[in-house]
């Protein structure tokens, strides 16, 4: 009997664990280690953040689902990896520290034959003074929608602002809280959902809404922007986004690294090196992501974290990490199998794998401050990668270590994204976009790096319906209800 241990139970980890268990059956063991007791459909958190969904709508308990699937579930956080075992044993293992199941604070060693790192990111609020509380958590000046609880808190604060806006001017600031953030899409959705709710509440005229972002142009989204084909026409995501911002009366500031947050005020540095301040009554700023701080030790107990993890804390995989200038970046730099080059029984999926470089054009201010979006590895790609890695591990277990590994390069996969711009059965809107490939391939598609025939988008009510249907569909899938394997990632 082989044992697969999956660290993390988010979109990619849950996908990898559940598919692996389905394919491996009862002959082999799948263990999931995640500090959370509940699974969260993160894309719908923005609706919790504006009071259009409850927390219960976007989460469900993991334990019964894993019990049904026959997966060994440990509510614990992974602390360290020991790929070579220890002095008296060659069996690799990880150490965990329980966060639930009545064993809070207890530590344990779990041996593995194969390990998938799907820990997701650490929400690195403290990277920006004032954005965090100094202890790694969200600070007191701003809100977040990164978790369901954050979103719940965001809504409570937002409702106060909407109430105040009935009698006085209020200013809302939404965007990224650092020059190296990703997930601009979530902030994009949140700002337009706030705008939508303000209109519904009849207080839009009293609400100044502003976007602040580390993108060098609106519509970059961390993937260097895209061109959207609509019928016979094509438009860049820059024009697409700017049109939406103008139409909804939302002002914007881009190329900004937020370097300090105070009560009612952010300080920022722009790409041209100039600095400025922006006041707010309510601010939702996405924090930068970092690795969760896992340590790695060799057989003798010596720290070798930098051997398998990149400096940002994400796990190294089969990518080309050679430092090279922007013009030499290639699609082939991106990983295909997500296997660690040093230890072939370790894989990383979703946000946990270290990307070889940015997707957007790298930019920095004259002061040397890097200000550019980091690559997104969330949503559809993370699910696809999780499933491909599960497939690889299953083949390795069943067919031996020479089994062919399954591939899912972000430079060869397309992705669909439905970004909400307001929730409502008849007045909701969402932008539905597809992009192929996610990472531009400038050799295959000279100029824009993508295939215009497979990169298109629309905004409208139907998009909102699709977003809402996807919400139910993916939660249905994650609960492993009948036919769950038929629902694509």
């Amino acid at each position, binding site marked *: 009997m082989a044992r697969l241990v999956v660290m993390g139970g988010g979109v990619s980890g849950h996908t990898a664990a559940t598919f692996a268990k389905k394919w491996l059956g009862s002959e082999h063991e799948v263990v999931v280690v995640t500090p959370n007791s509940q699974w969260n459909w993160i894309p719908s958190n923005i609706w919790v953040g504006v009071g259009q969904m409850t927390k219960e709508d976007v989460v469900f308990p993991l334990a019964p689902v894993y019990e049904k699937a026959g997966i060994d579930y440990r509510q614990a956080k992974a602390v360290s990896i020991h790929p070579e075992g220890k002095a008296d044993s060659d069996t690799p293992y990880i150490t965990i520290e329980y966060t639930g199941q009545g064993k809070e604070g207890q530590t344990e060693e779990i041996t593995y034959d194969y390990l998938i790192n799907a820990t997701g990111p650490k929400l690195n609020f403290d990277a920006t003074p004032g954005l965090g509380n100094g202890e790694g958590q969200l600070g007191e000046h701003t809100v977040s929608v990164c978790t369901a609880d954050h979103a719940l808190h965001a809504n409570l604060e937002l409702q106060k602002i909407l109430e105040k806006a009935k009698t006085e001017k209020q200013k809302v600031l939404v965007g990224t809280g650092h020059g190296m953030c990703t997930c601009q899409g979530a902030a994009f959705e949140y700002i337009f959902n706030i705008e939508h709710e303000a209109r519904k509440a009849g207080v839009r005229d009293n609400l100044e809404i502003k976007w602040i972002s580390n993108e*060098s142009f609106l519509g970059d989204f961390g993937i260097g922007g895209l061109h959207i084909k609509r019928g016979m026409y*094509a438009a860049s995501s820059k*024009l697409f986004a700017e049109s939406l911002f103008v139409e909804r009366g939302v002002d914007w500031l881009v190329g900004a690294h937020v370097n300090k947050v105070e009560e009612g005020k952010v300080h920022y540095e722009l790409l*041209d090196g100039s600095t400025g301040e922006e006041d707010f009554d309510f601010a939702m700023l996405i924090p930068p992501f970092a690795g969760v701080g896992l340590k790695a030790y060799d057989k003798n107990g010596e720290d070798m974290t930098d051997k398998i993890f990149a400096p940002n804390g994400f796990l190294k995989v089969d990518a080309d990490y050679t430092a090279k200038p922007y013009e*030499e*970046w290639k699609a082939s730099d991106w990983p295909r199998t997500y296997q660690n080059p040093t230890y072939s029984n370790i894989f990383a999926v979703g946000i946990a794998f270290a990307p070889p470089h940015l997707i957007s054009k790298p930019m920095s201010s004259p002061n040397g401050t890097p200000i550019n979006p980091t690559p997104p590895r969330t949503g559809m790609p993370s699910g696809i990668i999780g499933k491909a890695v599960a497939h690889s591990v299953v083949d390795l277990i069943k067919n031996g270590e020479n089994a062919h590994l399954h591939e899912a390069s972000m430079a060869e996969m397309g992705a669909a994204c439905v970004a909400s711009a307001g929730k409502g059965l008849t007045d909701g809107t969402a932008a539905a976009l597809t992009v192929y490939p996610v990472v531009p391939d400038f050799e295959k598609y000279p100029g824009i790096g993508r295939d*215009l025939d497979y990169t298109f988008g629309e905004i409208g009510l139907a998009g909102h319906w699709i977003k809402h249907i996807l919400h139910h569909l993916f939660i249905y899938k994650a609960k492993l209800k009948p036919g769950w394997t038929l629902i694509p990632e």
Partner: protein
Amino acid sequence: MVKELTVYPDERILACGDVRGFDESVGKLFDDIIDTMKRHDLDALSAIQVAHPFNMFVVKKEDQYIEFANPRILQKSKPFEAEERSSYYPDISAVVPRFEKMKIVYEDRNGNTCYMDADGDRHFAAMFQQMMDFSLGGTMLDRIDKKQKQRILDALEGKGLVPQPGDVCPTFSRKDYFVSFADKILFFMGLSLLTPLFKFEKNTVEHIYMFDKIAFPLVLALMLGFFLYAFYESKKYKQCSSCQVGNNIGVVIKRSVAAVVFALGAYFLVNPN
């Protein structure tokens, strides 16, 4: 070297990307753009307007030709309306919303990062922003309201400048709207079959079933409309495989069968009575 200007409705204007490497070809293209501007007496010209799909352009400010590669506008303020012309749309002008004050970051022909605070020169600001529209995929017509845009497109059509599908079939025709709408309805009909898996209230199930009852004849009606319009198009365009009657019959049969299957499924699975 003077380059040939693209003129509406030339589709090569559609999309371009950032300049990635700064070798001598970048400087050569800037020189060609400037030569072309001088020949045609233009105040601004982008690479995409001479059919090179790169985010670079030149704007004339007083007597100086300023070269911009990969420009970005970080901050803008002081909105105004500019009356603009473009060599891409000959003999027309449009009133376009622009900003007078801008913080700009860009690269020169050698890839050196440069910065500019532009303020007080509305003509330069308008030209710069018009070029920005071109250089990231779009034109100034994407910035104006639908009525003004339609007036301009009508005027261009009056000059004989209109996208020409020619004798071959268009890549997108109106009959596809029928199919697209029918597909969306079929998608929701299919989804409605999942109703028994959820614990909906009876009232909700009745609404879902009512949708199915309306959707079924609607899909059949759309397929009839599709077939009649496709028949009309098949007379209009020649050498058009997608307009052939056989293909159209196939489209109609496929969706009609799907509608019947979904309707039967709804009758047995969704019907609350």
